């Protein structure tokens, strides 16, 4: 235990930082949801929808998402390599740089410094800082794995390694730009080419931030918290390789019916269809793992987080390919359907899996128990209900929007002006904000539960224990 003490504090630092940025991101999300139906909720110039939206997405994807990925990946790597991190101090520097980076990201985005590339909004000085951060992460992950004390690399390590290499390639190529000032640059790629590079990056940033590292957590924490071994090692292997192979072909499904050459669109659609298979490989593996003893759903409070999480992953990876089809895309593209889809993945799959993993890790760092399983259960239900309300509402809005845009009179002219379509969204956008509140309430309980667990752990560490606890 002592050998890991310093590194565990780093892991906890990442987790707490992630939680902090997560709360910030969610609060901004609430403001954005309000701005959708009330222009008066904008406070120009800094707090307008246009400037805040990237703070929300970056704050949650990179603050909450990558922060948790750093922390939990380090935990997983240490456990699976049976040794502390190879460069403990480097990880601590990385933690501080990470927080400074996210803070600088929020400030510069509010000031309007943006590359206007989705999920790559940050301007070039921050891009360099992020590459440095990622190199630190890569050095520690690879160093620790190379010097591991366990011969076999478990499936979670594969996903961590794939994440490290893929994100590096994606982030560097996407952010190649022509600097034009201290916080201004122009994309190295122009027009159609710029679009193709952007969505090659944009889609795979989702793949390698919201999929592979989360699968690493799933494959590690599900068996650890239930005590049930992964159903099929062979299925893990097949799923892994086919997933990392197929993902990179699919970005252009974001550009269906745009001026991008048709063959790239079609190729992307075909591979997107194929991607259902490896995704469901992990879903099936998850179900059959718990299927060995379904009573765990009742007896172990974390099991339902993982099972519901992987269920949303399964739904997400069928809905996504459906959207890629031209016949569906022409109706729902550019509508609220798409944010509905994204939020099922992030509020369902990612949030469920990450929060459950944190519930698993935090008590172990402090050699204690979770503060309250009851609160964790309430958190689970609020998050689940909030997310479902949110996504379903957005899907209905999206279909309505798409249908009104396409509606014509008998003589072939358009039936609705743009604004007539817009005003019909307002009732749904009210509901969506309400859904966000329910979700936020769940997350507040989560934060409270984690903080109380740490407090309990610290109190316990403060008093000399009669007998050393054994795991």
């Amino acid at each position, binding site marked *: 235990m002592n050998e890991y003490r310093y590194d565990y504090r780093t892991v906890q630092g990442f987790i707490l930082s992630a939680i902090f940025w997560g709360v910030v991101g969610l609060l901004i999300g609430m403001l954005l949801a309000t701005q959708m139906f009330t222009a008066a909720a904008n406070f120009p110039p800094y707090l307008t929808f246009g400037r805040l939206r990237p703070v929300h997405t970056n704050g949650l994807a990179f603050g909450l998402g990558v922060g948790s990925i750093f922390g939990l990946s380090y935990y997983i790597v240490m456990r699976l390599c049976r040794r502390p991190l190879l460069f403990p101090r480097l990880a601590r520097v990385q933690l501080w740089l990470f927080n400074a980076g996210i803070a600088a990201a929020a400030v510069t985005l509010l000031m309007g410094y943006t590359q206007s590339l989705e999920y790559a909004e940050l301007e070039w000085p921050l891009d360099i800082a992020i590459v440095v951060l990622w190199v630190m992460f890569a050095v520690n992950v690879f160093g620790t*794995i*190379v010097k591991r004390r366990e011969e076999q690399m478990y499936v979670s390590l594969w996903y961590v390694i794939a994440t490290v290499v893929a994100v590096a390639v994606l982030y560097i190529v996407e952010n190649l730009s022509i600097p034009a000032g201290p916080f201004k640059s122009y994309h190295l790629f122009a*027009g159609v080419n710029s679009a193709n590079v952007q969505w090659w990056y944009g889609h795979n940033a989702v793949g390698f931030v919201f999929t592979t590292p989360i699968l690493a957590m799933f494959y590690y924490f599900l068996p650890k918290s239930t005590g049930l071994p992964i159903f099929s090692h062979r299925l893990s292997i097949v799923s892994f390789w086919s997933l990392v192979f197929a993902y990179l072909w699919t970005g252009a499904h974001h550009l269906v*019916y745009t*001026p991008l050459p048709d063959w790239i669109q079609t190729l992307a659609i075909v591979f997107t269809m194929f991607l259902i298979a490896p995704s469901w490989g992990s879903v099936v593996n998850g179900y059959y793992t718990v299927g060995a003893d379904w009573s765990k759903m009742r007896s172990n409070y974390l099991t339902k987080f993982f099972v519901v999480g992987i269920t949303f992953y399964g739904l997400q990876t069928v809905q996504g390919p459906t959207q890629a089809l031209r016949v569906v895309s022409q109706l729902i593209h550019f509508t609220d359907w798409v944010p509905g889809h994204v939020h099922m993945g992030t509020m369902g799959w990612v949030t469920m899996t990450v929060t459950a993993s944190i519930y698993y890790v935090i008590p172990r760092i402090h050699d204690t128990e979770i503060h309250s399983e009851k609160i964790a259960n309430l958190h689970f239900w609020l998050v689940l209900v909030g997310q479902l309300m949110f996504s379903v509402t957005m899907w209905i809005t999206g279909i309505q929007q798409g249908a009104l845009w396409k509606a014509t009179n008998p003589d072939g002219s*358009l039936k609705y002006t743009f604004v007539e379509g817009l005003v019909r969204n307002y009732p749904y956008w009210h509901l969506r904000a309400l859904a966000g509140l329910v979700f936020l309430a769940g997350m507040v309980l989560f934060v409270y539960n984690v903080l109380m667990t740490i407090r309990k752990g610290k109190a316990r560490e403060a008093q000399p224990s009669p007998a050393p606890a054994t795991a």
Partner: protein
Amino acid sequence: MAGTIYRKPVAFALLATATVLVGTVVTMLYPMLRPEMHPRLESLKPFTALQLAGRDLYQREGCVNCHTQTVRPLRTEVLRYGDYSKAGEFAYDRPFLWGSKRTGPDLAREGGKRPDGWHVKHLENPQSIEPRSNMPPYAFLSRGKLVPATVRAHMDALGFPYAGEEIAALAQKTEMDAMVAYMQVLGSAVPRRAGGGEVLALDERNPLGDSPDAIARGHKLFAENCSVCHGDEGHGQPDIAPSLTDDVFLGEKGDMGDGAYFTLISGGSDAKKAIGRKGDQAGGMTAFGGQLAKDDIWALISWLRAQQAHERKEAPPMEKVEHQGGQPEQHQGGRP
């Protein structure tokens, strides 16, 4: 399965990288080497300094988060916005700004659709034009000054041509001027295809005549579609749109027939040629042919005629002529 790879992290990482790169090479790198990814329309011009400054502001304010800039080749989309987007229109777009969400309307064909004054009024206070809009106000752009040296650095970075005086002139311009200049250049590389613009014989008679039903429906349609620019009663608004109740039509004295009205409403400013009057140079009458059914356009004309008749009754002809003689610009809105 070769199980040893799971014991060799370096080999594993290399194999994973290679696997990831296959799709990357085929769908991203290889296309980049082909000319089809670098098309440029002959008619496409690099952005001027003022337009680029506007585009920078469009980026700064995150407009791309709510507005798309790509018209898909779908019938209703072409009707609503104009011709579908061509690959060769975006050669100077670094980055592309097609967007992914259409909370507000597409802007790919915005250029020339509306007068500058409309854009200024709308950007300063969107709800003054469309009370139900959810767009934030950008009045601060009117107070923001451009920094010529910064814009020059941006032009240099992109290698766009410019003249020294063009840069110097920026010192007199506001951020609002730049934003409006950018709005007006959007989509201009492609000849505007008016959404459903229909040209009728200029003296064709309105089949609905002055039926009360048509007038009532026309009034409602006018309130929904036209009053934002032409005012509630059709008297026009300075710098935005001319009066529709005087006897000036497209900048020239002397009214025209119902067919001319129909042609103009259906085809917008582009229909001026067919009508044979120049109108205002900067005129930005929207084409409603795609949005309004034929009968709706006739109903609008019924209401307009009724409104004109009503005005004539209120103001005796003599007085009106004198009034106009005194202030010839009044009804045209006094646009430069």
